[in-house]
């Protein structure tokens, strides 16, 4: 689903965010991406979401090489990638329902299907009863779940999460992680950037560890953390 081949990303001439990163994620795989601040986690996610282009190497998502993807194709690639943010990026000028409906509207889904699919996504994250509320009225954990509903409402084959539990207490974090596990069980590839070591440890999943832009762990392994270099 995701493949990095010798990917290097330099900003300017002096800062190298990623150095020759190699890894491959299969369909339905759930993996963590970890590392200290500035290790390159964000850069790696940006490359997948086409917010950045690699300086060298190849990024392949869903069988498509992203390096030379023309600008006007970018939106269509992004429609296959659900993204969950730490600060959830919800819009407070509209209801929960309208927030979750946004990716479907963007794709031109017929109005009558939008209602059904938005409610299915909200039901999945347990917020069906709050569809008419403004996201501002919700708690942090609920807001994050709205963000997840929006990320999965169009059933993307790939789900990225950037510090999805960054602002949540451990119990809520475990709930969110459980949701991600459920998505991976139905075939969604999930990549979660996080520095919550204890949570990652509890999950016992494959972990990609970045250190100063180099992938030091989990690159070639398909199993758990034990396979790291």
């Amino acid at each position, binding site marked *: 689903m995701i493949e990095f081949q010798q990917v290097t990303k330099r900003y300017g001439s002096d800062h190298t965010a990623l150095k020759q990163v190699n890894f491959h994620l299969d369909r339905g795989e759930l993996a963590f991406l970890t590392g200290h601040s500035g290790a390159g986690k964000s850069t790696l996610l940006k490359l997948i979401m086409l917010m950045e282009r690699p300086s060298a190497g190849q990024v392949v998502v869903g069988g498509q090489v992203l390096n030379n993807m023309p600008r006007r194709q970018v*939106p269509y690639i992004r429609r296959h990638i659900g*993204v969950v943010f730490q600060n959830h*990026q919800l819009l407070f000028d509209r209801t929960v329902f309208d927030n979750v409906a946004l990716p479907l509207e*963007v794709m031109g889904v017929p109005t009558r299907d939008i209602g059904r699919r938005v409610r299915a996504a909200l039901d999945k994250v347990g917020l069906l009863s709050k569809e008419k509320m403004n996201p501002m009225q919700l708690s942090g954990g609920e807001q994050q779940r709205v963000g997840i509903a929006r990320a999965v409402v169009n059933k993307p084959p790939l789900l990225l999460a950037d510090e999805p539990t960054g602002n949540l207490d451990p119990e809520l974090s475990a709930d969110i992680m459980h949701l991600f596990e459920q998505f991976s069980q139905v075939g969604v590839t999930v990549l979660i950037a996080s520095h919550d070591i204890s949570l990652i440890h509890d999950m016992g999943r494959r972990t990609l560890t970045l250190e100063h832009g180099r992938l030091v762990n989990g690159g070639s392994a398909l199993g758990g953390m034990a396979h790291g270099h």
Partner: protein
Amino acid sequence: MATEPTRPRQQGRGAAQSRSEARDVAGSYLAHHRKVARESGRRLWQAPVASLMTWLVMGVAMAMPVALLLLLTSLEGVSAGWESSARITTYLTDNLSLEQAQALRLEVGSRGDVDDVELIDRDSALAEFRATSGLADALDYLDENPLPHTLLVTPPETGRTAAGVERLAAELEALPGVARVQVDLGWLQRLNVMTQLLARAVWVLALLLGCAVILVIGNTIRLAIENRRDEILVVKLVGGTDAFVRRPFLYTGVWFGLGGGLVAWFLLELSLWWLSGPIERLAALYHSNFALSGLPLDGALALLVFAMLLGWLGAWLAVKRHLDAIEPGVPAGS
């Protein structure tokens, strides 16, 4: 191979399905346009003062050149009316008898460059003068009719150019029995030149004010884009195309244009109503049928459509310039 027999049916169903899908896509596309149009209209309505200001600026900027164009059309109507009645007044010598005058009329009338000749004999000229001048009492003191016979010569339409009329006048003046020829085209020519000059000035003004309208809209849209930065980022993140992101702003521009057009129309009607009384009186003093023409309905509709186009163009320029600059970056620090 086992599925071979079922293929035609599947294909048929597939075609029907894709037809209905295409219908769905088109339907949802139109529904989306309606929704965006409604939404952007609602946003303008929610900030009535700011929107009204923009509408007024646009309205004033558009009303001015349109008003001048209307004035121009009215003036052209005046000169067109005179050109069609451009006649050469040929005064005959005093000693010419009525028979000689009639003979001269036939001679002039047979010319190729003359459309029509009317003879006004001295008696009927005096009668008309008596009736219209208000000098009837004074005329009674005269022993004899001071007026000569007169030929009113109308050149054919093709000859109604300044040069053609001048040449004809010169030839008529050379005829024996003709005392004087009078062509009152000088002021008409001056009016024509002035209208042409005014027309150019109006177009320059219209062009400048059109640019001003586009800039005003562009600036307003730029502010709207800044205000909705978050929304633009999120829409781009979930795969919104550039067209999708632009659409609400383009509709906003169109609504600004429509509002500005309506204000311009209103201002024009108001000024016309205010000016029409004095203009009628002034025209009456000059014995002119000059009237300031108002904006006909199709002209008003054209104004509205044009205003909407200007709004769209302004929005498009702003969107092109500022929207592409807003590109998402992962906001979480790590």
